[in-house]
């Protein structure tokens, strides 16, 4: 029997499709409305509310918490201020990514982390290995629910209920009150839009949900499911574990593992020479940088509309467009004299209703990753493989000013 999140009693009647799927053992709605595109536009045009409670949640505290996180995380936790958040990864000794996640620093020695897969024992085992006392890693997965409030009107909604969100800059965090609930609010999200994520104690889940939905009514707030979220995250260039990469923890061979640099996160190591931490995977990452041994680079692909349309029209059909989001691997070839010369692959594909064209997240060998490089992407047209022209572009595809704009006025 799947479990239900703390918000489920409210979600159940709102799901007009009555379709549910399993996310880490919890029931979640892939979509609430029949019109997926409309649901998606709650994120880009009004305000959306998403239950992300199935994420694993950890509280790391104690005077040695920073030391532990310095060792585990590939990105330097010391660069995360109190009241700030960090998008980070943890890697194995060979520099391969185990997981990514967002960590919130609510106090000098108090951190909250979300993760796609369980990591309690792993963190504790590192603490034991380091013989660290004064650090506690708690699994608080079921103590909190998390709501993502995302969209251009997100601040208009939350500011009716709490003044604590207004001064948050992008990736800031605050302990605050939402009605009578003690919550943690972060200016973060997985949509690339203006938005907040709110950690809510289980027993306050329904009242917080109700108050947000009520405050959002005049802004057409809509509950959204995981598919609309995933469509938005492709536009935002945000990778999804299990789709765009796999955890190296349960991989069989290195071909299934990827480094943070291969995944496009080399910016996390910009200050590596000034960073004296002995973090797990450091030597491998340094060697990768020094010897340029990255096998891939993760890039965006913009599929040429004319080419995409033409291959379908030639076959006598219309290009499939609306509501099209795929997580299946698609092959990419070099445009050369030799046909079908394999080069790499796309992992997430979306016909972006917003950008009016198909886009994809892809892995390509380094010589093909320059901005504007042309490649062939294999699509299936009436069950036959056909190549369409695509151009390499940097991520994200969509990055509105409102995502990072100050809400409280000032600069």
């Amino acid at each position, binding site marked *: 029997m799947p479990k239900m999140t703390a918000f489920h009693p409210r979600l159940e009647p709102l799901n007009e499709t009555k379709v549910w799927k399993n996310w880490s053992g919890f029931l979640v709605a892939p979509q609430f409305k*029949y019109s997926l595109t409309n649901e998606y*536009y709650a994120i880009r045009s009004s305000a959306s509310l998403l239950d992300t409670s199935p994420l694993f949640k950890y509280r790391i505290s104690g005077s040695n918490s920073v030391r532990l996180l310095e060792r585990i995380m590939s990105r330097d936790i010391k660069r995360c201020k109190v009241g700030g958040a960090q998008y980070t990864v943890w890697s194995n000794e060979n520099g391969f990514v185990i997981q990514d996640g967002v960590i919130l620093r609510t106090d000098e020695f108090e951190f909250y982390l979300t993760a796609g897969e369980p990591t309690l024992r792993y963190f504790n085992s590192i603490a034991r290995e380091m013989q660290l006392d004064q650090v506690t890693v708690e699994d608080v997965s079921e103590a909190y629910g998390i709501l993502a409030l995302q969209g251009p009107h997100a601040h*208009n909604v939350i500011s009716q209920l709490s003044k604590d969100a207004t001064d948050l800059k992008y990736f800031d965090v605050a302990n605050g009150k939402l009605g009578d609930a003690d919550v943690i609010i972060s200016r973060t999200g997985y949509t690339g839009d203006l938005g907040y994520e709110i950690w809510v104690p289980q027993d306050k889940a329904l009242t917080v949900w109700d108050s947000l939905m009520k405050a959002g009514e005049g802004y057409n707030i809509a509950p959204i499911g995981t598919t609309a979220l995933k469509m938005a995250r492709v536009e935002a260039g945000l990778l999804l574990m299990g789709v765009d990469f796999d955890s190296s923890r349960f991989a069989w061979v290195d071909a299934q593992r990827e480094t943070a640099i291969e995944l496009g996160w080399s910016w996390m190591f910009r200050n590596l020479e000034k960073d004296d931490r002995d973090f797990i995977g450091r030597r491998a990452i340094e060697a990768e940088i020094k010897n340029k041994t990255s096998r891939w680079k993760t890039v965006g692909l913009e599929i040429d509309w004319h080419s995409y349309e033409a291959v379908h029209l030639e076959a006598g059909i219309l290009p499939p467009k609306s509501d099209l989001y795929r997580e299946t691997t698609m092959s990419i070839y070099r445009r050369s004299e030799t046909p079908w010369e394999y080069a790499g692959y796309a992992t997430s594909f979306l016909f972006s209703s917003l950008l009016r*064209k198909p886009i994809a997240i892809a892995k390509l060998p380094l010589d093909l990753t320059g901005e504007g490089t042309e490649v062939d992407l294999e699509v299936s047209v009436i069950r036959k493989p056909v190549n369409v022209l695509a151009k390499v572009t940097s991520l994200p595809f969509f990055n509105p000013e409102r995502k990072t704009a100050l809400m409280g006025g000032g600069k």
Partner: protein
Amino acid sequence: MSNSNNYDAIVIGGGHNGLVNAAYLAKSGLKTLVLERRHLVGGAAITEELVPGFKFTTFSYAISLMRPDIVQDLRLADHGMLVLPLVNTFQPDFNGNYLLLGADADANFHEIARHSREDAESIRDLSHLIDRVCFALKPLMDNIPPNAMSDDPAELAAMAGLKDYMAGLEPDVQAMIDKFVNCSAAEILEEYFESDLVKALIASSGIIGSKVGPRSKGSGLVWLFHKMGEYDGVLGEWGFHKGGNGGFTEVLAKAVVAFGGTILTDADVDTVIYENAVATGVRLASGDEFFAPTVVSALDPRRTFTQLVSSDDLPNSLTEAIGKYKFQGTAAKVNFALSDLPSFPGLENRKDIFMGFTNLGPSIDYLEKAFADCEAGRYSKKPFLDCCVQSTIDPDMTPPGKHIMSCFVMYAPYHLSESDWDTERENLGDVVQATIEEFFPGFGSLILHREIVTPLDIERIVGLTEGNIFAGELFADQMFLNRPAPGWNQYRTPISGYYQCGSGTHPGGCVIGGPGKLAAQQILGDLKNQEN
């Protein structure tokens, strides 16, 4: 004359086709100027804040997606093009029955099956057939049509090619095209459906903006045209542009400027300047002059051929054709600012029923009666209404919790036999309000503001002759080879360097941008030939 008044191309009229045309010309490197008579661009696609916080789409109110190649070519997404898809279509009758159709085909089957199980199946067959018809006609919509009056070998070959193409279509597609051209919408619908609500819902597409009833020949073609318009890979993909249709033309204006074009508002063009049938520029009502070897009129055919230039300088055949070209606007708009959503008995507190088109006109007979008034030179006492509460889709249209409702009204003939529109304006508003009240009791108490737009207002404000929303009827003898006149359907005019790009040219009305794009294609092709 100062250098600053010299351009490569001047586009007269900043409606959406004028802007599309100008953006293409500017993109190709031409120094392009758009001259708009009013204080804002957009033509009939504008948004105005008539009451603080309430955005009114005074005229055009919804968008069927522009051809994606235009969106790509002009990078409209980068400039903020954002079309919010409609969720539902709601068609109530007077007895509390209704059809509520949405995005899910299976749910729609069961909804229609409440009225007729056979109709629920028929609609799938008919929709698929219409999809195939639209697909077959797509090349005709997306290309400059051949000139049937020319004996140029290339044109003769194009006409022969067209004939072959049509003859090569699959027989059921050909037969359906014949039906659309030769039958009324009602005739076709009788063949497929038994439910009045279903028939009326579809038939309304056959009368929109046109002086035809659902039982008039011609309504078949108007219906088909609306399917073509909404045809963009996904059937029924109509939407509201963020901020109303004025939001869309603002995006187009940004594209024009981004490509280096210039837009001048409050610039009323009085005449095109030409000598020996060669255009050299335009003169404004203010007396200012601007010069360019290419001048494009985005106005309707009557203004293009009788106002901006002298008919005396045109061949008689063209002048006669333009004289006969039918405008005869029959549509009005009544827009409301509302304190709350209307309520349908039995579906109270259901915001979703308003998230799309609300179609008031529950039977073919109802629509036909409304048309009988029009034929008699009166506005319909019981009009057909296409209502959109845009604020249910786009919260930025109103203050939170309030609503805006745009109602397209049929029929409101431009020529009233026993009165005039300045006398009847408020009466029309009352009739529309009373009709809505019949379906949604208590509607009147929600009204904060009412805007009434008669065909005369459309003509006065937008400049569309007789208030015809398509810049000329979408009748077979005014389309494709004949739009706006036989022999002059390729955007050129008898005056060299003077072109036309409004909705009165192929492929015609609605916010689709085709005329603007194809005219630009013709102009750029001609310029290239001149170089060679």
